[in-house]
Each structure stands twice: as structure tokens, then as C-alpha cells.
């Protein structure tokens, strides 16, 4: 009555020399992988800046009250921004230096906007390990080159906020900004 013929199983070889079970393994692993990867990525990506943090990405700065030789501090993306009104002497000092001889070769023109080279706007974040350099507020040490000085590990920046001495690898970063009027800028 009962058929003597064996049921085909997943372990039988196909004419191609593979087992059906091999296909099942590969398909299961591929399907699980396709599920795990996006879940893992979302677990990693949740640590990136959230929408509200990114939304605070631009600020307006009024420069009208900043006299020559003064600087103001503002906060942009939780980081300090320095806006310095350079004096003629500081501009001359910055231009005198051969940019090619610097650790991070940039001229003053590279670091300011055309026609507004008296406005030096940089992040107040030392490129070494992220401390806030001194020199923006009245009476603070401005280092050996008359710009900014980072007290944490002794980085000296010049009047164009370029790294001249100490461990920092780069000049103080110039954030993206535009002049909205001769005395106001939008940063970010």
C-alpha cells in the first residue's frame, strides 16, 4: 500500500551538484542580513546630531559696535565664534608673512571676504584639542604673534589666526558666512 519510493528531501543533490538546503541557508542568511544591517545602522545613526541640533546651524551677528582692535565672541553650533576688527597694523603684520612658510599655508585674503579684510571671523576653537583660545576679550593674553593664544597646550596664533607655534595642526577654522550689510553677517 504505502509507497516504497523515498520522498525527495532538502539534502538531495540537484543535477547542478548543490543541495536544496544550501539554497535555504544562503537565502536565510541573506534575508537576515538584509534585516540586521539597516537596524544596526539606525542604532549607529541615532548618535549623529539630531534635527534640532542641526536646526540651530546659523546665527546673525551685528558688527556695528565693534571698534578697530576689538573682538566679540558669539556662540554658533555650541562653539564660540570670534569676530575681530583688525587694525591696519595687524593687517600689515598678517600680510608681511610668507604664507608658504606656514604650517597651514593661507594668506589673510584666503581667510577674509574681499573688501572686508578688516573682519577676521573664525571659530574660537583651538585646532589642537578644542579649547577656546584667549585673546578675544579685552586684556587677555594674545600669544607671541599678537593673535590668539590657547592656554591648554600652548598654541600661538597670529593676527590672521594662523597657527604659528605649538601643537595645533591647523589655523583657526573660518566658518561659512556672508555679509548681509557692511556691519552684519550671517554665520552658517
Amino acid at each position, binding site marked *: 500500500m504505502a509507497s516504497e519510493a523515498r520522498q525527495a528531501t532538502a539534502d538531495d543533490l540537484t543535477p547542478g551538484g548543490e543541495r536544496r538546503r544550501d539554497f535555504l541557508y544562503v537565502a536565510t542568511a541573506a534575508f537576515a542580513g538584509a534585516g540586521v544591517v539597516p537596524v544596526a545602522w539606525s542604532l*549607529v545613526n541615532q*548618535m*549623529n*546630531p*539630531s534635527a534640532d*541640533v542641526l536646526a540651530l546651524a546659523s546665527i546673525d551677528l551685528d558688527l556695528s559696535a565693534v571698534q578697530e582692535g576689538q573682538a566679540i*565672541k558669539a*556662540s554658533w*553650533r*555650541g*562653539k*564660540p565664534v570670534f569676530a575681530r576688527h583688525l587694525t591696519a597694523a595687524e593687517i600689515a603684520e598678517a600680510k608681511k608673512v610668507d604664507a608658504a612658510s606656514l*604650517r597651514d599655508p593661507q594668506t589673510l585674503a584666503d581667510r577674509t571676504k574681499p573688501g572686508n579684510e578688516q573682519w577676521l571671523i573664525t571659530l*574660537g576653537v583651538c585646532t*589642537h*584639542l*578644542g*579649547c*577656546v*583660545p584667549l585673546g578675544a576679550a579685552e586684556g587677555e593674553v594674545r600669544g607671541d604673534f599678537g593673535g590668539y593664544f*590657547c*592656554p*591648554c*597646550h*600652548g598654541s600661538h596664533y597670529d593676527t590672521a589666526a594662523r597657527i604659528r607655534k*605649538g*601643537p*595645533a*595642526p591647523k589655523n583657526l577654522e573660518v566658518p561659512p558666512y556672508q555679509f548681509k550689510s557692511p556691519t552684519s553677517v550671517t554665520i552658517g
Partner: protein
Amino acid sequence: MSFPWAKEYKPTSAVGQWMDERLPLPRFIFNALGPGYPTPKNLNAFYNFGVLAGVALVIQIITGVVLAMHYAPNVAIAFDSVEHIMRDVNGGWMIRYMHAVGASFFFGVVYIHIFRGLYYGSYKPPREMIWMLGLVIFLLMMATAFMGYVLVWGQMSFWGAQVITGLFSALPVVGTSIQTWLLGGFSPDNATLNRFFSLHYLLPFVIFGVIVLHVWALHIPGSNNPTGIDVKSEADTVPFHPYYTAKDFVGLGIYLIVFSAFVFFMPNSLGEPDNYIPANPLSTPAHIVPEWYFWPFYAILRAFTTDFLGVPAKLWGVIAMFASILLLFLLPWLDTSPVRSNNYRPLSRILFWVFVVVALLLGVCGGKPAEEPWVRLSQVLTAYYFAHFLIILPIVSKLEKTKALPGSISEAVLAKYGKGGGAAPVAQPAE
């Protein structure tokens, strides 16, 4: 596994019998910490520090869980919630001081535990895995301590977070993205504080898990001992309980007395006063320093001041700092001497103490401002630190003429204490 002469667990009551057949937990403890674990009989006080480290972790977990009931991980109120714990929560000041001082003490006992392992060659075969798991615990401790320190959200918390996450920005190409990812923003902020709180709560339990592995691996060959030679017979061992349980309790008593002296009489002596100033993202403290237990590594980080081989100074510092610990994973293979204990290695013993002094001096440099002479001294000491492991130790372990090892632990003990019956030490090839 244990030695063949280990006592066997025999349940004494019907309940014990019932339990043993269903969940043999009493048997497990008997074999791990009880009379069923024969231990070399010559362990000195330095062998207390593993247990003390375990106790220190338990103190941190208990006080930490309690502190978390009162702490608020939000940048607006984190600092104030810590002061709330100090002033308003019943006994909160004591619990917080136990936690803060406890962190220092945890590192203190772990450093002694590590140096004990270095001196007696406890990292050598067959104990390499114990050593490496210990280093994993050490790395986890560093991460945990750093994140816990940030939670206070004082000036040193904030700027510590800035500097330490800034280390990752030294990596080429992806560095800045990694820093932003770690912080959850462009500078340490609420997202940073929240994730650090979450991880600071998690990691101690991970440490606990790795300690289980560390102790499991220890129980395979059993403890090393001050002679560094293997256990040969039952005469070389005593049962862990009551001998070492009693000894560990004595050590624990002394530890808790010293710990209490700090908690009650000088709770802030090990901390940085600047951290009692609330975090201010627009003003850097004049002198950023981590807690004392990170000073040697901070000194290595800051020792690199010029670019060379096309690699920026900043990246060198970061590489060197991580390498200074990762290097220790290779120690069992860098030190090839067949003799474990420095008691029988005259040259290596001197070098050990030189290394202790170098490590301590690196600590001093790390706590000072980045000025001369500390920068130059850090550079010399950092060079020696790496030379010790990569050049000096491998050469010395090949060339050194070691002293004759005693025939057995018993023989060494009897020779030392002059009791009759001990034969003079016999020269014997190393294990």
C-alpha cells in the same frame, strides 16, 4: 579545573543535596572561593588587590545606582542636581563622596594589581589570557571613569569631554565625523550628556562580566605566586577558604579604613577644584587636567609637539597614548624569559623599579601645565616607556642570567623562614 588534591564538595544537609542536584551553586562557590580551591601558600599582601578591586567595583555600582536616583542628565540642571545630592538628599554627600573617592581608589588598587602582575610575571604563560582580560577591564574602566566625570557637568567635565572626544578628530579623513558622532552635535551638549549617562550606567556591568571571565581564566592554572614557580604538590598549597578568605578580609579592613579616611576627612583632595564651576562652553579653564589616574597617559598624549614622518603632532600623541596601553597586550610575547618572578631576575628587577619610577614621573608630568621642563621630561619618559617594552625587556629577557629557582614553593617558604627540613634551593631549569 583544579589540583587533584582539591577537596570535593559534599552537601551536608538534605536541602544542600536537593540544591546540588538542581542548581549546584554552592558547589560552584566551594570550588571557586572555598576549600575546593587550593591556592599557593606563599601569596603575599600584594595578592589582596584583585579582591580589593572587585570590592571597589561593587562599591561603585551600589553608590552609582543610588546616585542615579537623584541625578538629572540634562545640561540645564545636571550640575545643580549634583549639588542637590550634596546638600539636600539625605546622606547624599556621603554617597557622592564614596563614589568620587571610590573611583580614585578603584584605579589605585588596580594599578597596584597590575604592577604586582608585572613584578611576579603573572602575564607569562599559561596566564596570558588573564592578563589580556585584565587589560580589557582596565580600558573599560577608563572609558567608564571618563564618562562618569563628564556627568557632573562642571568646567573640567565639559572641557575634558571636549579634549577627549577631540582625540578622535586627529584621525585622518573620518576624524571630525567620528567626533560629531560621539558627541551627537558639534560640541559637548545635552545629547552628549545623555549618552554618557546611559553608557556610564551600562559599562560597570560589562566590566563585571569581563571580571567573571578574568577570574574564570585565573582558575584554570590557579594563582601565580611570588616565586613564580608552578605548584608541585599539595604541600605547596592551602585551601582558599579559610586561609585566603581570612587574609582578604584583613586586607579589606585596612582598605576600608584608608578609604573612609578619604571619604570623611579629605573627599576633594583627589579631585580638581575647577569642576565645582558649572560648565561654560565659551571659556576654557587655564589648565585642563584629567583626574590623577589618567595623568601618565595624558603626559604621553602631550609629549608630541612636532610633526614628523609626515604625521601631524596631534595624531602622534593620540596614537602614542592608545599604543601605550595596547602595547601591554603584547607583553607576554615581548618578555620571553622563562623565569616569571623578578625575585629571580636581578637585572629585570632593577628595570622593573626604573619603570615604576618612569610611570610615576609621567604621572607628575601629566598633572602639570604643558610648559618646560615638563614637556621635555614627558618626551624623554615617553621614549623610555616604549623602549622599556619594545627594546629593553625583549633583549634583557634573552640575555639575563637568572638566579637558581627553588625546587618548590614549600622549599622556598621553608628556606626563607628558616624552619628545619627545607633543603637548600636547588638549581632547576625553568618551567
